């Protein structure tokens, strides 16, 4: 079912500081929408308002065509999976999954049937008789998923459901959630601070900071066309190389002066003017690295190398600045060797230094 948030505002009750500041967005039916942001950015509060666990100070929430803004959580036909809670410890796995069905006044046989089905889908059919103490953390989180599924909710809400699991299990469950979503085409809102999780799961990603939406779009949009410095910085590991710069006049055209380094202004920034203070950015993956000098390449020296497994992050000091560059792990690189960096105009980002907004015109640069 479609979910629409219209101008939601929420203040923290004890301090009056703003948790969610005029948030409006639409989640389409069958979409997996990820709320991404650092802790305290308002993503969880927004989700809790959709669930009915918090009441907005103003604004409206609709699920489908129903206005649920002030409806009790139990009447919203949503299901939620929590970060730090998975199973009711006083009940067995079966009783846990049956718990949401008990209010619906179904017959014993029906409950049995639905619990079995849901348990089979998440792969815990053999654990039904176990108690809380007898299941692992990953299994308990599957119980939570099954419990969310049995009610056939109109919207699934998932509040960092994987963050308490260890890395391997997290990836495995993430894949299963993705598969589940593709099979059922249900509407899912997924909150996380882990941008890799957001990238791999989301049909769309909403990046939030300080209670406000910074950008909403597909994972590609958010990664390749960040709307502002915050998104550029927050999305992607290692994060984008960003340096302060000014626009200068240079033989007939404009160029970006990074201080000791001058770069051309790419064509997709037609609105910049001379003297403007900007931030100049390039992703570590987009930098062309070569040991041999070439025209228009910036010479430098390798200062530090960190292995990332199949890739390596190489720090190059060039024109007095430290650039992070991602290279294939098999490429032989030594500390101290000379390096030459080339920046493709298409992969350059410019942001206004004051507002932090991207200066790119639409359409924006293609994949680097």
């Amino acid at each position, binding site marked *: 079912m479609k979910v629409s948030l219209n101008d939601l505002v929420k203040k*923290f*009750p*004890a301090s009056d500081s703003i948790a969610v500041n005029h948030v409006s967005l639409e989640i389409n039916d069958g979409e997996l929408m990820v709320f991404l942001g650092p802790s305290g950015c308002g993503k969880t509060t927004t989700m809790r308002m959709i*669930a*009915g*666990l918090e009441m907005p100070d103003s604004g409206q929430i609709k699920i489908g065509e129903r206005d649920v803004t002030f409806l*009790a*959580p*139990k009447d*919203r036909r*949503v*299901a*939620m999976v*929590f*970060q*730090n*809670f998975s199973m*009711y*410890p*006083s009940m067995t796995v079966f009783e846990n999954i049956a*718990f*949401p069905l008990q*209010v*619906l006044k179904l017959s014993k046989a029906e409950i049995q049937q639905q619990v079995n089905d849901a348990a089979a889908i998440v792969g815990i059919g053999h654990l039904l008789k176990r108690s809380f103490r007898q299941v692992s953390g990953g299994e308990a989180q599957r119980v*939570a998923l099954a*419990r969310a599924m049995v*009610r056939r909710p109109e919207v699934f*809400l998932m509040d960092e459901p994987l963050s308490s699991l260890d890395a391997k299990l997290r990836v495995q469950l993430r894949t299963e959630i993705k598969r589940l979503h593709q099979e059922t085409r249900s509407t899912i809102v997924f909150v996380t601070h882990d941008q890799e999780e957001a990238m791999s799961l989301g049909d769309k990603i909403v990046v939030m900071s300080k209670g406000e939406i910074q950008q909403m779009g597909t994972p590609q949009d958010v990664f390749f066309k960040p709307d502002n410095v915050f998104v550029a910085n927050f999305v992607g590991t290692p994060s984008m190389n960003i340096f302060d710069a000014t626009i200068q006049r240079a033989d007939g055209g404009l160029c970006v002066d990074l201080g000791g380094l001058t770069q051309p202004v790419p064509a997709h920034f037609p609105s910049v003017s001379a003297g403007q203070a900007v931030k100049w950015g390039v992703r570590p993956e987009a930098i062309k690295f070569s040991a041999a000098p070439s025209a228009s390449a910036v010479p430098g020296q390798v200062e530090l190398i960190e292995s990332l497994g199949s890739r390596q992050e190489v720090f190059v000091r060039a024109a007095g600045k430290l650039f992070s560059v991602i290279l294939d792990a098999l490429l032989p690189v030594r500390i101290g060797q000379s390096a030459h960096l080339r920046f493709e105009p298409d992969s350059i980002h410019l942001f206004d230094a004051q507002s932090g907004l991207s200066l790119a015109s639409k359409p924006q640069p293609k994949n680097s």
Partner: protein
Amino acid sequence: MRKPIYQPLLIYALLIFLALLVVIPLAAGALTAFKPQIIWISSPPTWNFVPTLENFEFVLIQRQNLLHLRNSLIVSTGSVTMALILGIPAAYALARFRFRGSKGLLQWLISLRMIPPIVVGLPFYVLFQTFDLRNNHFGLMLAYLTFLIPLVIWMMRGYFVEIPSAMEECAMVEGYTRLQALRKVVLPVIAPGIVATALLNFIFAWNEFFLALILGGRETSTLPVAAGTYVGRARVEWGNLFAINLIIMVPVIILTIFLRRQLTKGLALGLVD
């Protein structure tokens, strides 16, 4: 760093000495409760006797202490039950909701524990005379609520804080009201905490002396008040006195051994955490 060999021995010697300071008076007193009357006052005390229950029989039946035991049980259970019913919801709210003034309210509630009994005892005495609540079980229970409710809130809040709020929120999303969620999901988990709180509060109510002394009367005085009547007599009936003493102390000592882990929580946690 090597410790000298005698150090643990010294530690044990000191601790055992302190333990004996507890065990000897209690054991000697307990034995006296089983001594026949003729050797109560033998000097030095003699330990060679045939144990008898005649002291207990005498104080419980002849001296009407069966009635006082009943009073103690009624007042303690009654006041603790009331304190739990009133205090647990408040503890829950103070653990879960952050609202303007919630921190100050909690501190204020905790500080009520500091009121000296004389400050409330006097007005209670006057007011209870007006409202005919003196010498009345219910009146004494009310008076006990002044210190029992803060204690319940103090302890139970600690237990609620340990339970993730997502537990009842999850149940609320899954089709239950908050009260249903609390009953079906939180109550089973928090039950041991309620038991510990109830028992510790019972100890406090059971031991209370001052308010029972001024607010109780002939029919409602509790065991500590009854034991107090032995004080200052020219010829103290030690055997009888220790029989009462033992009836007061034994349940508490059993509870203490049973509750030793939760004890700290009830006494200090509200401030330490």
